[in-house]
């Protein structure tokens, strides 16, 4: 197709009216062009159409005709293969546990065959990214042999010189798969002329994949364009150093590495950092540009209870967003007493708390965080369990002290009487609140603790039998939240989700 420009007939615009039609001659007829059948469309247009379908739908077009056989494989720059697609198709019914294992095993082999086949068809085609999520990978085989098919997938990604690579073996049953990322010698020993093909990598995410420290170091040293690195759930990670020169690294996550002993981070351009897990001494050195920090596990606890251990970096950095993922059960009550003041977080604007706590535990600890953050204007708290008035009452004192014009978002609101008390107290203490968002989404309705409570009463009383019964549906919770509206002052907005 050509676009012809007619310079000999140059016109200048003489009217402001846009796309005004001017008939110049009368030979123009609407059907002047030969009819386009879909096969006449250029391949890139067909690929554009196929790209807008799901992978399954696009794959089905391969039987239309020979022309369509491989078209769908060109659809996206990034190949995303997820075993969820195999499991979601058809319900998995089984008569007993053995039968269940058998059926899962069949699906597992089906997924491996599927990945192998797609990768085989992609030989010879360009590829920007490869994502493989395999939640039903078999945990450590009895023979102790490496699953060579996964090695092949990694090798494939290397051959393709992908920019984005993700292996996610985060297991659906919570087990650790014990798959170890091949070492560099192994990657390079396939044939004589192999070179390390991850040189253009921008993003590397490994979840549930064991990767040895020296392999990570090799990647860091050999991938100058790396912008994102995530290592989550690697059990062989021990002493990790993420230090400059890493001119492009902006996002770093090192989480759930159970046996990590030390971590050193010193990256001038780093913007966002997540560390969850063991309470090792956090090791930030040069991170002048860090603005988002997420801490979880023992480390989050340490941030609150032993702030002096973290002051070396929390003083310096221009932190705008801080998120803490906390499992409250693991917090010791003793830590509350004689706790030193937190260093001031002068630039902090947004604080997020994701708390897993059982009823009756105090959330008092985070008042110190609010006190330490004079510029805070957004505060989100997500509680996975029922809110309890007593926990949040104490926390609210800090709002009063600040008179903040905060936006508050509460997630996991189910409308217990304690929830209601909390909101009413919130309004009393902090009348200048701009918005209160109440999100009623909660696992609570599915967990049906009221069933458990009835059962438990007959045996030993447990936590759940002490718990007040909340509404049994989300709609009911919304209705309860709706009733709060009358208590709200006109300038505070209530948003219910």
């Amino acid at each position, binding site marked *: 197709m050509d*676009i012809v420009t007619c310079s000999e007939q140059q016109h200048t*615009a003489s009217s402001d009216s846009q796309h005004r039609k001017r008939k110049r001659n009368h030979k123009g007829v609407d059907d002047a062009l030969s009819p386009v059948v879909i096969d006449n469309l250029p391949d890139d247009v067909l690929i554009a159409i196929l790209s807008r379908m799901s992978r*399954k739908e696009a794959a089905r077009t391969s039987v239309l005709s020979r022309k369509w056989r491989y078209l769908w494989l060109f659809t996206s720059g990034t190949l995303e293969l997820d075993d969820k697609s195999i499991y979601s198709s058809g319900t998995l019914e089984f008569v007993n546990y053995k039968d269940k294992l058998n059926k899962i095993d069949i699906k597992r082999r089906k997924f491996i065959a599927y990945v192998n086949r797609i990768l085989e068809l992609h030989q010879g085609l360009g590829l920007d990214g490869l994502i493989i999520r395999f939640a039903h990978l078999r945990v450590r085989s009895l023979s102790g042999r490496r699953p060579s098919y996964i090695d092949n997938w990694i090798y494939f990604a290397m051959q393709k010189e992908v920019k984005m690579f993700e292996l996610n073996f985060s297991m659906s049953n919570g087990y650790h798969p014990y798959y170890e990322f091949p070492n560099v010698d192994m990657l390079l020993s396939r044939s004589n002329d192999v070179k390390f093909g991850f040189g253009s990598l921008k993003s590397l995410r490994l979840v549930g994949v064991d990767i040895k420290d020296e392999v990570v170091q090799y990647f860091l040293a050999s991938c100058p364009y790396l912008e994102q690195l995530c290592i989550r759930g690697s059990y062989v990670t021990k002493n990790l150093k993420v230090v400059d020169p890493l001119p492009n690294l902006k996002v770093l996550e090192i989480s759930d590495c159970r046996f990590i002993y030390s971590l050193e981070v010193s990256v001038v351009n780093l913007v966002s950092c997540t560390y969850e897990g063991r309470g090792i001494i956090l090791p930030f050195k040069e991170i002048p540009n860090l603005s988002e920090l997420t801490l979880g596990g023992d480390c989050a606890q340490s941030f609150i209870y032993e702030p002096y251990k973290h002051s070396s970096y929390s003083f310096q950095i221009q932190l705008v967003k801080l998120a803490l993922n906390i499992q409250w059960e693991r917090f010791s009550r003793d830590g509350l007493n004689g706790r030193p003041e937190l260093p001031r977080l002068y630039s902090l604007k947004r604080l997020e708390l994701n708390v897993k706590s059982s009823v009756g535990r105090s959330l008092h600890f985070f008042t110190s965080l609010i006190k330490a953050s004079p510029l805070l204007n957004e505060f989100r708290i997500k509680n996975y369990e029922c809110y309890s008035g007593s926990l949040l009452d104490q926390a609210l004192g800090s709002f009063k002290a600040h008179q903040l014009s905060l936006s508050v978002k509460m997630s996991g609101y189910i409308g217990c009487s304690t929830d209601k008390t909390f909101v009413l107290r919130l309004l009393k203490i902090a009348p200048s609140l701009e918005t209160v968002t109440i999100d009623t989404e909660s696992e609570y309705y599915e967990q049906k603790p009221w069933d458990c409570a009835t059962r438990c009463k007959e045996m030993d009383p447990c936590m759940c039998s002490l718990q007040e019964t909340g509404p049994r549906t989300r709609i009911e919770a919304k209705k309860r939240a709706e009733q709060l509206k009358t208590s709200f002052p006109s300038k505070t907005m209530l948003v219910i989700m």
Partner: protein
Amino acid sequence: MVTTDEKGPLTAKKKSVIIRSCDGDEFLVSESAAVLSTSLKKILEEKEDRLIHLSDIDNKTLAMVIAYLSTHADDGLSDDLKRSFDQEFVSGKEFDVLKYLVLATDTLQVTCLCYTVAKKMADIMKNKLVEWVRREFDIQNDYTPEAEAEIRRLDAWAWDDRQLEDD
């Protein structure tokens, strides 16, 4: 009257170009709308042409593309309004019309419209029986029955789960 040799950000906004379809009809388009097409932008950068002839886009299609470009070049419209315009733009259009449109967007390199139209075409094709697609879009099946069965077997994962429609 705006002359072509005036330059600068103020006058550039008001400048217009004339685009001629293959039927010979001419459309007056503001330059800010025209440059949303990568091809037209390139032409306008290279030459001072004010008349651009498109040898394979017909009246009907060109009018639609220009309506789209002008709407998207209008700074007074919010993104939400533009999005709902996009939805309305493709809704109810016949597959045939969409084919010419997608060809035109491919020629003119109007990426966002190409996405919108391709999405609509994909929506029409998905969840349909292979036979329906072949019939509707005039695709000649050049496989042998054995070859077709083999492909279905190889990609069995794509076929296992849903009821396909034939209307």
